[in-house]
Each structure stands twice: as structure tokens, then as C-alpha cells.
């Protein structure tokens, strides 16, 4: 078998050697895997101490469920031959990754590695949504949501934007017909998860005490550890999306570093001016904002462009996270403010800042006209609307059928204890206070 996507990519740099490119893709895939625990830790530190374990389990549960679903049918929907209008891939073509198990001597990089690398993008996207509905959801229903959403929302959107046409293969509409640019997932990952988070938060409603209690992060050292691991993993996400150890990968790497840095600085500046204090939580959030915005654009802008994107994302997201208090939706960990807004910033700025020194087109500011900007707006808008609508529907159905939100008493006692029969910390000297069940009592 030949994965057409890979053939297309191989054409970019026909002189590259398989082993070197494969080595970098193996490392990148491992880095993207690390983003799952990284996100679990990042999110875990942000919630109150009574729900940190539940948050971590939502992320790890997403990892487990999405991986299985992806292997079975998700990859095939995303990267199988298009069945209709560039909207949906053939779910039977790579069912259970069939056809990818045997080595293909013609493939520049192993097809099965590409499939799993893409699968890890699905994992992160789904896991991100958990942040919007922290502290108040049933774990079993969440796992079901992960499976359904992967099939009905993620895989189609990935097909649209990531599945390139190739000889003997028809891919998705955004990448091929529309010609929107999204290097590593501004639409499929960032806008998609952010819009889904907004929908889920609206359908499930606010946490008890939202707007009254501070609900501040219970452990900012966890937030920093998580942010560090995320940034590290993001190099696999972005530079790995070059699918080879090439100059393009290096470019994506540099832009990923630069935009994270300027995102951090811009967020801190907004805080300093507005609140009088620059916070560590702002530093972590600012870096992530920059990384979100550079995700679609890391392979199409120069380092100077990356600086600008980071600054824009850091500043705009710093302002956007306050919206939830104004508009009254409880997007608990700011998936909307950071991922939806940051994803929009990065996807749209491609229309302004793409440089033909790096990519195939020039953005508006580089003399390229309005054309690419229009394409970017269409791609961003289509993803936002589709994801928001579908997610609202899925969450609503699950709430009505299985029940998605926990009971009030359980929420106020804390989901760690109630759902998982655990508490995160036991740092005390007095270890007494619990009594084992002996025999049958």
C-alpha cells in the first residue's frame, strides 16, 4: 500500500533519506504523546485540589479511547479515499490500520508511523475539550464522548484540512479545493477544540459558585511543569508536521520557539498594564497562546512573522480569557480564550504574514493580496461552525441519555472523592483517619 499523503509529502523533498526523516518522525510522535500527560498536569494544576485527579483522568482517558478509535476507524475516515465532496474518507480502507502493517519499501517514512502521529493529534484535540467542562462531568460519559466526537467531528475535519490529494487519491476540500493553509492544526486542533469546548460549557452549564468563588489554580508548580512539557512536546507537533528532518522542520522549530516566547512576553505585558502584576499563570498561558497561534503558521512564516504572531496571540488571548466572566459561560480552564481565540489568530494571520521565502504563497503584508486571507477565513469559519454545532448536539444527547453532569452534592464534595474514591494529596504526619474494610463490612 502507499499512503498518498506520504507520497505527496515525499515530493516536497525527494532527496531526503528515509532513515533520517523517520528518526525525526519517531521522535516527534513520542513528543506529541508527551503532550497528553503534559496537558493532564497543566490542566490538573489549574483546577481546585478536589478535582485534580478527575481532570488528569479525563485527559488520559481521552488518550486511551481516542487512540483505540483512531486505530479502528478514525484514521481511515480522515485519510482514506474521499467518499463525498471532500467531506469524509472511506472508513473501511484502513480499518484497524489494515494495509499499513507490512513494510512498504516505497514509502519515505513508514505509513503506520504517519497514521499514529496523526492519531496523537486527535488525542490532544479531544483532551483539550476537557478543560472547558472541568470539575463537573461524569467520567464514563466523558469516555463515550471521546469516542463519538473523534468519529463525528475530529476525523472529518482532519480529512478536510490534512488529507492532500495525490496520485490515485482524493483528499479533503479545505486542503485541496479551497487551498487553505494549516501547517499543524490551527483549524483541526485549535479552533476545533476551542469551539467544542465552548459548546460543551454552554450545554453543561456553570460550576457551582462560578463568578463568586475565585476557583484559582490549586498548584501553580504543576501548571508550570505541564506548560514546560507541552512546549517541549509542541516541537514534535509543529516541526514533526514537516514529516522529515528538513529545512522546513527547522523553520517550524524556530518559529515555535519564537512565538511561544513573544506570546509569553505579550501576555505579561497586558497583565502588568491592566492589573499591575505579571503572574506566573500568565507566563504559562501566554506561552501556550503563542504556541497555539503558531501551530497553523509555523511552516509558512519567517521568524519575524512568528514574533508578530506570538505577540498578537499573547495579547489578544490575555484579553479574551476575561470574556467568560462578562458573557457568563463557564469555560473553566479557558479553552475558548486560549485555543479558539489563539487558533483563530494564527489561522487568519497566515493571510497577512505568509512569506514565499518559506511557503508557496505570500500573505497580504508580503504583497500577496487578499486571496489567501479569504481562504483562511473560510477554513476557520467552517471549522468553528461545524465543531460548535456538532459538539452541542453530542453533549446534549449524552446529557439527556446517559447524564453528563454530576449531581450538585457530588460537585461540591469534589469529583475526585465521589467519582474516583481518591484524594490527590496526603502530605500530613497524622496518617490515621481511615479504616480498612475487613471481611465484608
Amino acid at each position: 500500500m502507499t499512503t498518498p499523503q506520504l507520497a505527496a509529502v515525499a515530493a516536497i523533498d525527494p532527496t531526503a533519506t528515509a532513515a533520517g526523516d523517520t528518526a525525526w518522525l519517531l521522535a516527534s510522535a513520542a513528543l506529541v504523546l508527551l503532550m497528553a500527560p503534559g496537558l493532564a498536569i497543566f490542566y490538573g494544576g489549574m483546577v481546585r485540589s478536589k478535582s485534580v485527579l478527575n481532570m488528569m483522568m479525563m485527559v488520559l482517558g481521552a488518550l486511551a479511547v481516542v487512540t483505540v478509535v483512531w486505530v479502528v476507524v478514525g484514521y481511515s475516515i480522515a485519510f482514506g479515499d474521499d467518499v463525498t465532496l471532500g467531506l469524509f474518507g472511506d472508513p473501511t480502507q484502513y480499518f484497524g490500520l489494515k494495509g499499513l502493517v507490512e513494510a512498504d519499501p516505497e514509502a519515505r517514512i513508514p505509513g503506520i508511523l504517519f497514521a499514529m502521529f496523526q492519531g496523537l493529534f486527535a488525542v490532544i484535540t479531544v483532551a483539550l475539550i476537557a478543560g472547558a467542562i472541568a470539575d463537573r462531568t461524569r467520567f464514563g460519559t466523558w469516555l463515550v464522548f471521546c469516542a463519538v466526537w473523534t468519529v463525528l467531528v475530529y476525523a472529518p475535519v482532519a480529512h478536510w484540512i490534512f488529507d492532500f490529494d495525490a496520485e490515485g487519491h482524493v483528499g479533503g476540500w479545505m486542503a485541496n479545493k479551497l487551498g487553505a493553509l494549516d501547517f499543524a492544526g490551527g483549524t483541526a486542533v485549535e479552533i476545533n477544540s476551542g469551539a467544542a469546548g465552548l459548546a460543551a460549557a454552554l450545554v453543561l452549564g456553570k460550576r457551582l459558585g462560578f463568578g463568586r468563588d475565585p476557583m484559582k489554580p490549586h498548584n501553580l508548580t504543576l501548571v508550570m511543569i505541564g506548560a514546560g512539557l507541552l512546549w517541549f512536546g509542541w516541537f514534535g507537533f509543529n516541526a514533526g508536521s514537516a514529516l522529515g528532518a528538513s529545512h522546513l522542520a527547522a523553520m517550524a522549530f524556530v518559529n515555535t520557539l519564537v512565538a511561544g516566547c513573544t506570546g509569553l512576553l505579550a501576555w505579561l505585558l497586558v497583565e502588568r498594564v491592566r492589573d499591575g502584576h505579571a503572574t506566573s499563570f500568565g507566563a504559562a498561558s501566554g506561552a501556550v497562546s503563542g504556541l497555539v497561534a503558531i501551530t497553523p503558521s509555523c511552516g509558512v512564516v519567517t521568524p519575524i512573522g512568528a514574533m508578530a504572531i506570538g505577540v498578537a496571540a499573547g495579547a489578544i488571548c490575555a484579553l479574551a480569557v476575561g470574556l467568560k466572566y462578562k458573557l457568563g459561560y463557564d469555560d473553566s480552564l479557558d479553552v475558548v480564550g486560549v485555543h479558539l481565540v489563539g487558533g483563530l489568530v494564527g489561522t487568519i494571520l497566515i493571510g497577512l504574514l505568509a512569506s514565499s521565502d518559506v511557503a508557496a504563497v505570500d500573505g497580504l503584508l508580503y504583497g500577496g493580496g487578499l486571496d489567501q486571507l479569504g481562504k483562511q477565513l473560510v477554513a476557520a469559519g467552517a471549522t468553528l461552525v461545524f465543531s460548535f454545532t456538532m459538539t452541542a448536539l453530542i453533549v446534549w444527547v449524552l446529557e439527556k441519555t446517559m447524564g453528563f453532569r454530576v449531581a450538585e452534592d457530588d460537585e461540591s464534595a469534589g469529583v475526585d472523592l465521589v467519582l474516583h474514591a481518591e484524594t490527590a494529596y496526603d502530605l500530613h504526619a497524622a496518617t490515621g483517619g481511615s479504616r480498612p474494610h475487613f471481611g465484608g463490612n
Partner: protein
Amino acid sequence: MKLITAVIRPHRWENVREALELLGISGMTLTEVSGYGRQKGHTEVYRGAEYDVLLVPKVRIEIVAEEPDVDGIIQAIQSSAATGKIGDGKIWVSPVESVQRVRTGETGPAAI
């Protein structure tokens, strides 16, 4: 002078604080404590073995107050802390012989 000690549910403290402020009481000392009583904690599971958690987190409030204020304070705490479910806590009053402000050395009512 009396010492009023109240053991209440942690998430009611904000309520109690507001009720006391209405009375003009604006000083107290809080301690995070563990309560043992009729209310039972949740069960925890560890490696398949279940454990009853016997202790429940509570907050203890201490207020040194003048005798005439005591009843009002008790009433305020009572009504702002009660949820009607087992585990709401206790309030007790004990005698205090003297009180002093560290900063100034003032004693008696002037010290609180």
C-alpha cells in the same frame, strides 16, 4: 470576656463571615481541622481495598468576645452555618480571664 469556638463546614465560612460582619465582629482566628462524628467521610479505594475515611474536613473558628455579644454571635454563626444535614458542627463557649493586643499591649475590651 468569653471565647466562642465553632466547628463548621469549610464552605460555610464565607457565610459566617458575612453574618458576623453585620454584627460588627471583625476579628477571628481560623484553623483547618478534621472532624470525627456522626457524619462519615467518603470511602476511598486503593489497589482494590476499600477504606472508610473517618475524618471530615472542618474549619474551627475562635472568637474572643465581650459577654453581651456572645448570644448574638452564636445566633449569627448558627443561622449562617446550618445546612440541616448531619455534620454541621458545634459551637461552645468558655470563659476568658484576660485578653491583650500584642501590638499595643492594650487589655480588656479594647484589645479585641
